[in-house]
């Protein structure tokens, strides 16, 4: 693998594990486009001397100038707060890393990223096989660095928690994920009847 490919893989994996913010950017852009088109159309209509759609530019300017007098203070404060909160949300979207629920594995000939749901499903199968229970009796939830494996035993058949831990740890080690996931096994005290 050439250094070029290594850099390329690093870039691809970074992009595939982080949100591109396309949805937010597109939504915001569409709202802005509508606003701009409306102002543009109103301006042209005013020049042409045609009746405005909602308000002609002079009315807009006058309305904005008289805001402190024409609108009741509580409404103005509420509107200002809503705008500020919306702004804050956009700033957070712009600055936050926007990690997606995915993990990368070390790259060899190929670069590799797996959905957390696929990893959970993979672990659940291993845990259920080791614990000798139905796959439906195992629930795995995956965070960035931690996985929780919940096993509900079949009533009367104790589950070897240590064996499950070993099997799940071995599976996780073979995935070579980054960031590394540490699994904890929880065996429910009450079992399923008739499974």
């Amino acid at each position, binding site marked *: 693998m050439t250094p*070029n*490919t290594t850099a390329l*893989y690093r*870039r*691809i*994996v970074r992009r*595939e594990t982080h949100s*591109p*913010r*396309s949805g937010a*950017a597109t939504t*915001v*852009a569409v709202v802005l*486009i509508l606003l*701009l088109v409306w*102002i*543009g159309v109103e*301006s042209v209509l*005013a*020049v*042409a*001397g045609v009746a405005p759609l909602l308000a*002609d*530019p*002079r009315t807009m*300017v*006058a309305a*904005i*100038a*008289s805001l402190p*007098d024409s609108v009741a203070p509580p409404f*103005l*404060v509420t*509107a*200002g*707060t809503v*705008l*500020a*909160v*919306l*702004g804050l949300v*956009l*700033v957070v*979207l*712009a*600055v936050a890393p926007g990690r997606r629920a995915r993990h990368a594995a070390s790259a060899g*000939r*190929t*670069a*590799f990223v*797996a*959905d957390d*749901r696929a990893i*959970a*499903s*993979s672990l659940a*199968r291993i845990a259920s096989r080791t614990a000798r229970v139905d*796959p*439906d009796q195992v629930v795995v939830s995956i965070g960035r660095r931690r996985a929780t494996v919940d096993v509900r035993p079949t009533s009367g058949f104790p589950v070897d928690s240590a064996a499950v831990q070993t099997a799940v740890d071995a599976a996780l080690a073979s*995935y070579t994920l980054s960031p590394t996931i540490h699994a904890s096994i929880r065996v429910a005290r009450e079992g399923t009847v008739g499974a």
Partner: protein
Amino acid sequence: MNGTNRFRNRAGLLLLGLVLLAIGGAVVAARLVPEWASAWADASGPVADSVTGALDASPVGAAGGSWLLIAVAVVCAILASVLVVLVLRQGGGRTRTIVRGTASMEAESPGGGVVIESGLAKDALTEAIGRHPAVASVSVTAYAVRRTPALKISAQARRGASIAELRAFIDGVVGAWDAAVGTETPIFIEITSRITSRFGGATRTSTAEPSEVSPAPAAP
């Protein structure tokens, strides 16, 4: 992996977010701080008057028309077009050519170049990977990442599929592809799992290695 300009997306969101924060904060502050409220009330009249004055001083066309308004319309149209381009630039970056004959290849066979289109990779890899019983569906797309052609293999795993084993299988297919093509195109593998595969019912599996398992018809 696509060509979306993420920095531009984030920069745009940051800019608009700060503007909204400033406007909203100013409105709230103006109502909460009495001096600011009076300052706003004092300033708004003259500002509105000067805007109206400027509109009156630049007459054109019908009564009340102003060439300033034409300028406003033009600026709005330009900004809106820029935003439309930004929206249309999301995604993209696909390429049709994944291998183009290099100098060394041409030295071996002078007078002829080699071009491999992404459609070939797509057909060959999709066919080979889709055969694995743990793969519900697979798609292969070619992107130009920083001008380097790279393939993205996106495989949807069935419930309970081992991702390590899936990766090993796909790497094997990639090895065969490399051998067939003669060069190593960068390849990115993505394993996803769909929610509906949870409700597919328990799959009966044997204890044999998955490679020995033939895709048997579903049990009645």
